[in-house]
């Protein structure tokens, strides 16, 4: 294990080291309590009835036989919910129409995808609940489904929502109802003049399939609605506060009536931000007066949660002979699933961000189809959009006979450049990542052997801050109990506690972090968008600064000196002016902590931050592949991920995020797809057929952490989780082209797709 700190973090005592995570023991002994592990007295088990059709009107639902089954205590349908007004609700990351949120939780008049929830049952055990589902009689009028984003956009296509019109960013709406929910456009420079300047222009079309976040823990939600009208929710969620907002809005309760306890979470990657089961559990609990736990099985997860958008994309890019990119035009059509809200906006803004291209035109379309409502998935929208743009850039380099990294360097965005969306870059590590990749042993090595190839690609993601809270209680033993609202998905208890320990000058082990419920800490946004170590760490820093101030004040009181004359040192020694005898006044943090109870009481530090600064992250990936021409299988031979982390707080977990992002990106590149038949039936709704990478599918993933500290953060942090999922697909595509001369145009580049492309001659 590498334990040395990087040169960038040598100035720190705790930051840059690799302590064992505070929640580690519970997670290797089985003691950690995930959502489904919860048992409450008198708890009932719930199950959900789901639509067998992709698109149908619900004519009637008869639950009487199910309700009559011995052991069944309640059955609920959409009509049992308070009527959702036509209002917007904050769903954690942006807002959504409340009626659509409820209709996605449980269908009202129409089912819009196979697996759409129709009714929910609570029973004394889950076997009985499952039996009861079979007794619910639903009469459907089956409608023609719309499954492809391009079909959905055509005039005259069957409509999912009669009331949906295409809205433009300026607020105008189309006259006719449409499956295209919205359109946005960004431009910069003069696109036609830019292409006129180009010596070479390449245009490609791409199709990508929906892909699922694939967290190993399935969704769960437990509710206990007390007779006094208060509601407790226990769930595996990326954001307890957004769950509270959504559940209270859907149940027409005030937020103060609802307490959400975030359980340990078995992965999320964006997919555990929406609510699915929590409102159903709440209503079943209200009806029965008992706690109700709902869990999904894997088929339900694949049918009815997540995924990220399938897309149709078109990119045209032109460059001069010397490699200068003069113009780029990007067309993105993203499947939102059954309700509006694909990540096409973020995809559009990321698509060309790594490059300073003078003339750009980017169009994005958000389109509803009869598939599950998409959810955020790691750098939402960017893996698709940048797959398209990076792929065309690689082909331009190939056409011009230029080194693809050199061509990127000569066009790279640097500080002061502005994206087409009008976002100027501050201090960024774009060039540093490309340079580190060039200098890597991997790029410097020779690749030999038939049907082998090397590819490279760049990735960009914004990273944002927003609200986080941290409370720290100084205990008499000199340790600090740190209270957080951020679900710990991948070691953020550690990375946040480390920033507090660094600020206080105490050892990491002396900070004891805990993740608590929504009644016990200030508002904290979702663990997502690579914001948790960034904003949570900032909250911990400010909380620690508050503790430093209060400890200094206390020392001043004890010494009877002026507060301004006392200083808290980075070595956790509090120093005051010399006493009358000329002796130094100083006291260690631990010793002062021991005196707190008898010198005026305990100290609690507090910080509630709402940080607006961003920490743009870039990554450069290199991959070597071997293509089996007989089977179409692509083997990953070697992989190197370079990424600017700003400051790597806990380098092992930074590497882990990079490696995990690569694995997901490789899955998206090679195997993972939502495979529907013409009726809208998902044919691969299991982890056997929805093929995620196994240990045997990947080599060791070499990591190279670049550290260009983010000036917008006290410790220079940038988020790290999102960006590494972006470059794998275009890098693998380039490697396949380099190996066998075929430029793929779809994701995944599965054995089937490769064989079709090679036997049909490719391009």
């Amino acid at each position, binding site marked *: *294990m590498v334990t040395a700190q990087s040169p960038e973090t040598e100035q720190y005592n705790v930051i840059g080291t*690799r302590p*064992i*995570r505070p*929640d*580690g*023991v519970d*997670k*290797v*002994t*089985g*003691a950690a*309590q*995930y959502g*489904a*592990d919860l048992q409450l007295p008198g708890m009932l088990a719930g199950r959900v009835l789901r639509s067998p059709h992709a698109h149908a009107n619900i004519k009637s639902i008869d639950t009487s036989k199910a309700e009559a*089954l*011995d052991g069944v205590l309640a059955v609920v349908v959409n009509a049992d919910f308070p009527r959702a007004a036509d209002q917007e609700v904050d769903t954690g990351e942006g807002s959504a129409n409340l009626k659509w949120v409820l209709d996605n939780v449980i269908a009202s008049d129409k089912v819009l995808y196979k697996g759409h929830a129709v009714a929910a049952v609570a029973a004394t*055990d889950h*076997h*009985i609940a499952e*039996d009861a589902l079979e007794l619910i009689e639903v009469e459907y009028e089956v409608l023609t489904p719309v499954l492809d984003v391009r079909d959905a956009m055509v005039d005259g296509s069957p409509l999912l929502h009669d009331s949906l019109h295409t809205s433009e960013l300026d607020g105008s709406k189309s006259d006719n109802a449409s499956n295209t929910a919205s359109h946005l456009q960004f431009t910069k420079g003069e696109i036609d003049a830019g292409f006129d300047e180009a010596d070479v222009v390449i245009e490609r079309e791409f199709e990508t399939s929906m892909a699922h*976040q*694939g*967290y*190993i*823990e*399935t969704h769960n939600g437990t509710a206990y609605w007390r007779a006094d009208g208060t509601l407790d929710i226990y769930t595996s969620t990326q954001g307890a506060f957004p769950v509270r907002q959504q559940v209270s809005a859907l149940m027409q309760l005030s937020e103060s009536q609802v307490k959400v306890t975030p359980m340990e*979470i*078995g*992965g999320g*990657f964006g997919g555990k931000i929406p609510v699915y089961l929590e409102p159903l559990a709440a209503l079943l609990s209200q009806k029965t007066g008992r706690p109700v736990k709902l*869990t999904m*099985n*894997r088929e339900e997860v694949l049918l009815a949660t997540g995924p990220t958008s399938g897309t149709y994309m078109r990119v045209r890019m032109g460059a001069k002979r010397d490699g200068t990119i003069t113009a780029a035009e990007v067309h993105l059509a993203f499947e939102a699933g059954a309700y509006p809200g694909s990540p096409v906006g973020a995809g559009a803004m990321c698509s060309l961000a790594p490059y300073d291209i003078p003339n750009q035109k980017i169009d994005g379309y958000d389109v509803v189809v009869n598939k599950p409502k998409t959810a955020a998935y790691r750098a939402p929208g960017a893996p698709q959009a940048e797959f398209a743009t990076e792929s065309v850039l690689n082909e331009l380099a190939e056409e011009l006979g230029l080194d693809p990294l050199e061509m990127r360097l000569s066009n790279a965005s640097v500080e002061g450049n502005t994206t087409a969306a009008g976002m100027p870059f501050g201090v960024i590590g774009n060039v540093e990542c490309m340079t580190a990749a060039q200098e890597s042993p991997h790029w410097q090595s020779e690749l030999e052997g038939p049907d082998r190839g090397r590819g490279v690609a760049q990735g960009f993601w914004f990273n944002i801050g927003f609200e986080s809270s941290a409370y720290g209680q100084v205990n008499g033993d000199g340790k600090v109990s740190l209270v957080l609202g951020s679900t710990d*998905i*991948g*070691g953020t208890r550690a990375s946040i506690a480390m920033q507090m320990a660094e600020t206080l000058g105490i050892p990491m082990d002396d900070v004891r972090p805990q993740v608590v419920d929504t009644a016990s800490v200030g508002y904290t946004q979702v663990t997502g968008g690579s914001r948790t170590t960034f904003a949570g760490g900032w909250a911990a820093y400010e909380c620690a600064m508050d503790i430093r101030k209060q400890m200094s004040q206390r020392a001043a009181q004890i010494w009877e000196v002026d507060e301004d004359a006392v200083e808290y040192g980075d070595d956790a020694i509090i120093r005051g002016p010399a006493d009358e005898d000329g002796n130094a006044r100083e006291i260690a943090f631990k010793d002062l902590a021991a005196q707190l109870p008898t010198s005026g009481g305990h100290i609690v530090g507090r910080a509630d931050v709402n940080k607006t600064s961003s920490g743009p992250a870039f990554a450069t990936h290199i991959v070597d592949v071997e293509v089996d021409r007989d089977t179409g299988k692509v083997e990953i031979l070697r992989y190197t991920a370079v990424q600017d982390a700003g400051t790597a707080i*806990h380098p*092992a*977990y930074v*590497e*882990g*995020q990079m*490696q*995990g*992002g*690569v*694995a*997901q990106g490789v899955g998206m590149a090679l195997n993972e797809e939502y495979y529907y038949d013409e009726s809208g039936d998902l044919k691969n709704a*299991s*982890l056997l057929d929805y093929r*995620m*990478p*196994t*240990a*045997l599918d*990947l080599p*060791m*993933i070499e990591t190279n952490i670049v550290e260009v500290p983010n000036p917008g953060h006290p410790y220079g942090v940038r988020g790290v989780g999102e960006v590494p999922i972006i470059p794998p697909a275009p890098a693998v595509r380039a490697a396949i082209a380099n190996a066998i001369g075929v430029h793929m145009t779809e994701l995944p580049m599965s054995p089937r797709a490769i064989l079709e492309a090679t036997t049909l001659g490719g391009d």
Partner: protein
Amino acid sequence: MASEHVVVNCTINGENQVFLANERDSLLEALRDRIGLTGVKEGCNNGNCGACCVNMDGRIVNSCLVMAAECEGAEIRTVEGLADGDQLSPLQNAFLEQAALQCGICTPGFLVAAEALLEQNPDPSEHEIRYWLAGNLCRCTGYDKIIKAVQQAAGQSVV
């Protein structure tokens, strides 16, 4: 549709257990819902992810594919049985030191499976580790650090 119940006698983590199982219960359901060993996780309930794997009579099984009623007389070991009191096993320590877990939901299955590997093959190659663990899915780590943790527990030098 009323279910029959069966009495099951077995040994779990070295302790005799007698429990009443619904005849429709899988071993996974019995361990979690009847006995309270919730360290055994459900990821797919059809044998594809390995989150529920336990050691049954010396073999690694996906407990979602074993009926509880089949476990009469069986000797079963779960993640809860790996540590000796407050002494973590070398494999558990290696997972912590190598940061081989992020969300931790797949960790119990990986630990049980890897322990069985090292019992059978104390000095496995990287390929042998990957092959043995290919039935356990992890979505967070990309496997790199899990493989290294197993190598560390096997006493191999880890870069």
